[in-house]
């Protein structure tokens, strides 16, 4: 009995001591608190693909967010970021979102990168009432479900094709178009959006060819396309297939008024450096560092200096999204409901141009982001459309090989 009583006394004395320190601690905190609230700390969740197959692009988003963190600090906002890795999988993104919403108590979430993850997380944002700002996922459905808590900065997938077709119908009067695209989710959905819009614009679809990526020989497909003599050739493909397609298009002597490149493969430095075959190709993107949006050029320079590579549109989207979320959350004191209202009514202007979340054409809280049409001229990407953002005149029609 005795030793037990002694132990109990010891424990209670330790508890007293602990309570004492807690009180002192609380008092100190209380004294410090006004200072802390002046520095404005906001807690924001980030869901990104840090590992897994999407990691190379996830890295760009992460870098953009790190630059935003620095810039928020310059504005006197201390962004306390909670980083979550979804490894590119929707189910992991969902558990990350649950953790951020319930355990970490974040004021808002920026991310995830992939369309599949973003779409899964959007449902949870709506359920847990957490403002979610999607920086770069393209799937249209994400902002078409009337979710009040989900915002998207970038333009959805169908705009990739639309802006290209808008541009060429402005440059000339093409009447026929051929589609060549890889038979993946990305390829078919981008091409489908293109086909719908082409019909609306009164351009006749003369060839509709899907291919399985990684094949060494597209010559027969291109020969077939050439036999229809299309005014426009629209291709959707990943990095290196784009180079093969253009090389072999040159081989078979395909010569439309313009080559249009949808997405990934046509917007890489590697593609542009193949000057023989990349010249005059038109492609669409969310952002480019030579566009006249405030801070875009500086962002490109800073990014290159800090990370040693070119800033991609993913990085710019993530940067702008984090700046908007950080500033809004700080202004509203981290209150989720107020943050949501402020996102819905606010207006920003930065490296992504003017940002305003609107409801239109079945979209909810979707930024009407104007996509850019770039043309490769002597190995460089030059903005040629829309006119207000253009830095050079387009070369149209295609001058030949």
């Amino acid at each position, binding site marked *: 009995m005795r030793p037990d009583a002694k132990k109990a006394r010891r424990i209670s004395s330790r508890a007293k001591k602990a309570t004492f320190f807690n009180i002192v601690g609380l008092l100190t905190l209380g004294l410090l608190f006004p200072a802390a609230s002046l520095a404005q700390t906001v807690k924001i969740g980030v869901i990104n693909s840090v590992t897994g197959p999407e990691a190379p692009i996830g890295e760009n988003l992460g870098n953009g967010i790190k630059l935003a963190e620095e810039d928020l600090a310059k504005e006197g906002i201390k962004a306390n970021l909670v980083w979550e890795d979804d490894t590119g999988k929707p189910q992991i993104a969902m558990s990350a979102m649950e953790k951020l919403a319930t355990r970490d108590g974040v004021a808002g979430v920026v991310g995830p990168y992939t369309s599949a993850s973003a779409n899964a997380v959007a449902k949870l944002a709506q359920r847990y009432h957490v403002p979610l700002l999607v920086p770069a996922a393209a799937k249209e459905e994400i902002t078409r479900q009337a979710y009040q808590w989900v915002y998207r900065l970038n333009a959805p997938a169908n705009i990739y094709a639309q802006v290209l077709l808008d541009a060429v119908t402005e440059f000339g009067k093409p009447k026929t178009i051929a589609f*060549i695209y890889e*038979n993946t989710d990305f390829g078919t959905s981008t091409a489908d959006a293109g086909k719908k819009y082409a019909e609306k614009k009164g351009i006749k679809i003369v060839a509709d*060819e*899907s*291919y*399985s990526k*990684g*094949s*060494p*020989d*597209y*010559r*027969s*497909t291109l*020969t*077939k396309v050439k*036999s229809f003599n299309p005014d426009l050739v629209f291709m959707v493909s990943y*990095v*290196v297939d784009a*180079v*093969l397609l*253009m*090389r*072999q298009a*040159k*081989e*078979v*002597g395909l010569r439309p008024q313009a080559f249009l490149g949808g997405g990934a493969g046509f917007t890489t430095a*590697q593609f542009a450096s*193949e000057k*023989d*075959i990349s010249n005059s190709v038109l492609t669409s993107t969310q952002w480019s560092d030579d566009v006249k949006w405030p801070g875009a050029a500086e962002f490109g320079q800073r990014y290159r200096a800090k990370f040693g590579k070119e800033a991609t549109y993913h990085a710019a989207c993530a940067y702008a999204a984090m700046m908007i979320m950080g500033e809004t959350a700080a202004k509203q004191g981290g209150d989720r409901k107020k943050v949501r209202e402020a996102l819905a009514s606010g207006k920003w202007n930065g490296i992504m141009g003017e940002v305003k979340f609107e409801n239109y054409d079945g979209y909810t809280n979707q930024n009407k982001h104007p996509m850019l049409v770039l043309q490769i001229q002597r190995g460089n990407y030059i903005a040629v459309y829309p006119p207000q953002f253009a830095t050079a005149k387009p070369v149209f029609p295609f001058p030949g090989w």
Partner: protein
Amino acid sequence: MRVLLQSAASGILIGGVYALVGIGLTIIYGVMRVINFAHGELLMIGMYLTWIIFTWLGVDPFVSIVFVIPLTFLFGAFLQTTLINRVLNALPQNQILLTIGLGLIVSNVVMLIFTSDYKIITTGYSSSTLNFAGLRLSTPLAISLAITTVITTILYLFLLKTDTGQAIRATAQDRDAAQLMGINVKRMSVLAFGIGTALAGTAGSLISPTYYIFPQVGGAFTLKAFVIVVLGGMGSVVGATLGGIIIGVTESLAAVYISSGMKEVFVYVLFLLVLLFKPSGLLGSSRM
């Protein structure tokens, strides 16, 4: 008509490269009865060697086969003596596991060294064409078909006319009998695996000016080589040549007249038909 001829022509050109991959696999199988599932990875090594020689030494990809052939031959001989030789009398599934494992190790080591980035070799003639009777033929593919023809001719002559070639064929026909006749079958196996590897490496070199290079590129070619070899008859060099050309032309015509996305389906339907009606392959009965 022009579209038909044009696509048949490009089918034959690409089929020439397929044939070279297939011949390498069929020689290895013929002599050792080992199905080499790392064949595509050996081709990938040829591609990376070509890329290194091209970017660091500035040697043209087609000239680089002068280095690639001996290097890949030695690598193949090394693999045979250290690994494959140990499983020659083992169960077939053990041999398959060994070559599959070897392929995985090779592609992952290459990925560690060169990362998974795509590499592209750009030469002055990468997208140039030759005009031949109104058809546009890809210059690099035409050159590679010419080189393939020369290499296969030399290989036939070697196998038919020289003593060593006959010894290899004897080993392929009956390993025990060949050994009784005083042929060093172990050395013939080393030679055969070396030649097979060198052929895969050469195919890698020949295809690299028109294709792209990454560590996982081998898988698709292993599968294709396997189809070619079974189509032509396991162990038959002439069969593999024929098989390669047939696959190339089928792919090309299916892409034009049916759909580019479906061209592989037709290759495998053709493959299944041959297996159904002539299970030993087109030239299956004659061995080499």
